[in-house]
């Protein structure tokens, strides 16, 4: 079974190149996630509305943090959408994940303002601190770092968010502190 490892927002040359080489073939961990009754009800409500797939996937990801493989099969089945389309869509949109992210998702803004003000350095420093690269999860499952486009707080650049909580005017030497704040909580 092939896996998908296409969902990245590459930001530095090195990272981009590494990721290109790794775009294929990684077996995802088997999981036995199943749609909950609430999710099934949500799908039932959305089923009559055409073009519902993306909305349903958002809801599924909100629940699991990613789109588990079994669940993708269930969604295809319940919505009566070809599985190929489900995967075509999931892998097209950067927000959808096929692998479970860290408990804390650190999103570093790489909008223009943040880039000019050192967003790249923030990512490198976070990689140093956490010991994993972009879009990977720390071994303890706590953190994952991704680069995102414009969180819409350009006035506070550089900006990062942890599970949606925004930190503005971030300096490199504050990062360890920010990470420590969440770790183990």
């Amino acid at each position, binding site marked *: 079974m092939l896996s998908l490892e296409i969902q990245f927002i590459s930001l530095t040359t090195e990272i981009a190149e590494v990721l290109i080489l790794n775009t294929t073939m990684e077996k995802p961990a088997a999981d036995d996630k199943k749609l909950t009754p609430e999710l099934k009800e949500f799908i039932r409500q959305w089923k009559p509305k055409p073009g519902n797939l993306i909305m349903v996937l958002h809801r599924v990801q909100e629940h699991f943090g990613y789109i588990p493989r079994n669940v993708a099969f269930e969604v295809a089945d319940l919505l009566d959408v070809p599985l190929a389309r489900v995967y075509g869509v999931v892998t097209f949109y950067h927000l959808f994940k096929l692998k479970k992210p860290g408990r804390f998702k650190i999103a570093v803004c790489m909008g223009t303002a943040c880039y000019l003000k050192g967003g790249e350095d923030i990512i490198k420093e976070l990689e140093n601190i956490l010991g994993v690269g972009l879009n990977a999860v720390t071994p303890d499952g706590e953190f994952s770092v991704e680069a995102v486009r414009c969180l819409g707080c350009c*006035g*506070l650049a550089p900006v990062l968010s942890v599970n949606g909580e*925004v930190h*503005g005017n971030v300096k490199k030497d504050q990062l360890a502190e920010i990470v420590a704040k969440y770790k183990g909580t």
Partner: protein
Amino acid sequence: MAKLTLEELKKLREEKRKELNNRRTEGKDVQVIVGMGTCGIAAGAKDTFDAFLKEIDQSGLTNVTIRQTGCMGLCHSEPTVEVIVPDMPSVVYGNVNPDVAQRIVRKHIVGKIMINDHIFDKPAADIIK
């Protein structure tokens, strides 16, 4: 809420316009308006909002309304807060952290003295008056 007819919409508008222009209803003549866009919230507008609530409560002020609004456009000095006190020109404060919020309540609202270094100008001449 009942569905509005055209007439009811007009009536509602007149009522609300009066209310908005003249906030002295129920004896509340001071307004604190906190900018609560993504930018403002990211910069701590929620804490600021809470600080105002707390400080006003502790000061025993009963004539102050605290409201939220969207982005005032002053992203470099979020959180931003507009303060409207009778007999004083209304001003916009920027970089209002809980500390400054406390000072605004004590100095500006109670003492009628503006606070140095935190006043910003809303960069707009609202031509639609």
